[in-house]
């Protein structure tokens, strides 16, 4: 059992999410950086999609009532065990009675703390991920709070301390990122100038950046071609008849600040989407802090599929290296 002494800023239980309920408004949820979640789990001998703690910007403080093997990957927030510095991206033992906390973030936004055996919460609709807006899944459908007591599952026997990531399997975070976008959906509603400006400008992550979506500022306003609005669409040129929003889709309410939807996305609404960030770049967004810089680059669907293959190959190597 692990007791929450301090919850951190926004710590929740996440796995790889749930599929099949988006048509009812229930988004996939799951880790915002699914590569880091998989890495942390594999380091402690778990299956890659076991439930772990997603620790956002400021990590929690945890008291362990039993011995455990843990690992942190993703954001650079150095773990401290009873005050002693512990490695990132490496499995280490916590003994019964010890307290684990985390230094201030050096880079990235979300650290994934896996424990051998995984966090034992009930599966809801096929996943242990927390969807806070719907009070669903995870630990009582919410972020962690002071005094919560988290149960741990039975560890795999293969788990051993000292297992670590190296080389290009280490997670990368920090600096300016490039997000690849397949233009489409209502992209044709932008003026030619706006379509060009969106990809030319450098954007800055705004303060409204969470599991639902990331808002970007600092680029030029994006004009939509004026038209007589279709019936039911609403009066602003950026409005459409409410439709479904893809995960990763980019909407620009009133043409001002682009919002990229993520794992806890609202499933639909009335703002024109101008394209979609490809699935293999969503992890990069999950590690963006407010004020970090990002650029968007247009690619074809074929290139998106090629990027997806490379991403999957890296996942396979991760599994091969850590399983051996």
């Amino acid at each position, binding site marked *: 059992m692990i007791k929450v002494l301090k919850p951190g800023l926004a710590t929740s239980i996440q796995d790889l999410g749930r*599929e*099949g*309920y*988006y*048509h*009812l*408004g*229930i988004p996939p949820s799951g880790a915002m950086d699914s590569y880091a979640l998989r890495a942390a789990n594999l380091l402690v001998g778990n299956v890659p999609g076991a439930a772990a703690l997603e620790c956002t910007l400021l990590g929690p403080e945890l008291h362990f009532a039993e011995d455990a093997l843990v690992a942190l990957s993703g954001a650079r927030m150095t773990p401290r065990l009873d005050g002693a510095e512990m490695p990132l991206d490496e499995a280490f033992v916590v003994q019964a009675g010890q307290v684990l906390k985390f230094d201030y973030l050096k880079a990235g936004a979300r650290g994934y703390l896996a424990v051998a055996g995984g966090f034992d919460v009930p599966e*809801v609709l096929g996943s242990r991920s927390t*969807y806070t*807006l*719907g*009070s*669903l899944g995870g630990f009582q*459908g919410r972020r962690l709070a002071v005094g919560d007591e988290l149960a741990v599952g039975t560890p795999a026997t293969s788990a051993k301390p000292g297992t670590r990531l190296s080389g290009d399997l280490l997670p990368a975070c920090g600096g300016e990122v490039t997000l690849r*976008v*397949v233009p*489409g*959906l209502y992209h044709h509603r932008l003026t030619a100038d706006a379509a060009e400006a969106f990809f030319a400008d450098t954007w800055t992550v705004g303060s409204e950046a969470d599991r639902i979506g990331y808002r970007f500022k600092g680029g030029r306003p994006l004009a939509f071609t004026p038209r007589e609005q*279709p*019936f*039911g*669409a*609403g*009066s602003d040129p950026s*409005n*459409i*008849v*409410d*439709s*479904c929003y*893809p*995960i*990763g*889709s980019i909407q620009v309410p009133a043409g001002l600040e682009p919002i990229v939807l993520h794992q806890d996305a*609202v*499933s*639909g*609404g*009335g703002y024109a*989407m101008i*394209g*979609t*960030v*490809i*699935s*293999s770049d969503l992890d990069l967004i999950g590690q963006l802090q407010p004020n970090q810089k990002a650029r968007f680059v247009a690619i074809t*669907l074929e290139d*998106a*599929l090629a990027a*997806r293959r490379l991403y*999957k190959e890296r996942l396979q190597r991760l599994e091969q290296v850590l399983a051996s």
Partner: protein
Amino acid sequence: MTTAIRYSFGGDEHLFVELSESMSLEAFFRGLAMTRAVQALQLPGIHDICLANASFQVRFDPDVLPPDRLLAAVQGVEDLAVAERRLATRLIEIPVLYNDPWTHETLMRFRDRHQDPSATDLEYAARINGLADVEAFIAAHSGAPWFVSMVGFVAGLPFMFQMVEPERQLQVPKYLRPRTDTPKQTLGHGGCFGCIYSVRGAGGYQMFGVTPAPIYDPAQRLDYLQEHMVFFRPGDIVRFRAIDRAEYDRMLAQVEEGSFTLNIRPVDFSLDAFLDDPRGYPRTLMEEPA
């Protein structure tokens, strides 16, 4: 209906299909028929088929189902999109306390984000729709049934389209800036769409009232939520019944003790019957015993 159906990929995991740029029951029915036809293909690799008002989206795994194969399959059922014009569905009565104290308190708190800070949402909606007063607006709102044309935004939130002639469609803009708070089970309205906020949270629709009936509950405490934690499905038909505070309080007590239930009955909806007589046909749905 000869409008060309528009296809666009939402990255590598979504296919977006637009039946029409503008809202109509015709467009919704085409989407409903096509999504049912795609569902029936049972293609491996489809995660989810999300039906919206006049469009739909397929979320899929391109490693299992390559995008071009999915596109060809969906295009292959286009012809079915005009075939289905009848729908066996549910007629659901939703009790509503219009002009309730909780949405009133909330709308007063966010008056600076509203088009008309000197009026309430109901007064504003009545005025811009050319209705004499709030009572006349409530009569129009609860006087004809509504079609659930989309479920989403957040878990279990129904978007609804009223079954009236286009000139009688109630229309209101969204708030100038979205609120950060909306009471749970608020009746909202934005553009031509009504909704019921399934959970407390942010929102931009005008607020007209509140229903005591939970429509989303992960704990599934009430009988009509036993089958699924999300109550509404696209295609459901809703009629609102205005209730007073005493009845609201009674129902809320029933919700708390777990005995509350909804009047739900099966109904066979005909799109052509509605289009032929958009005033008379919905009235038959309102008059049927619940």
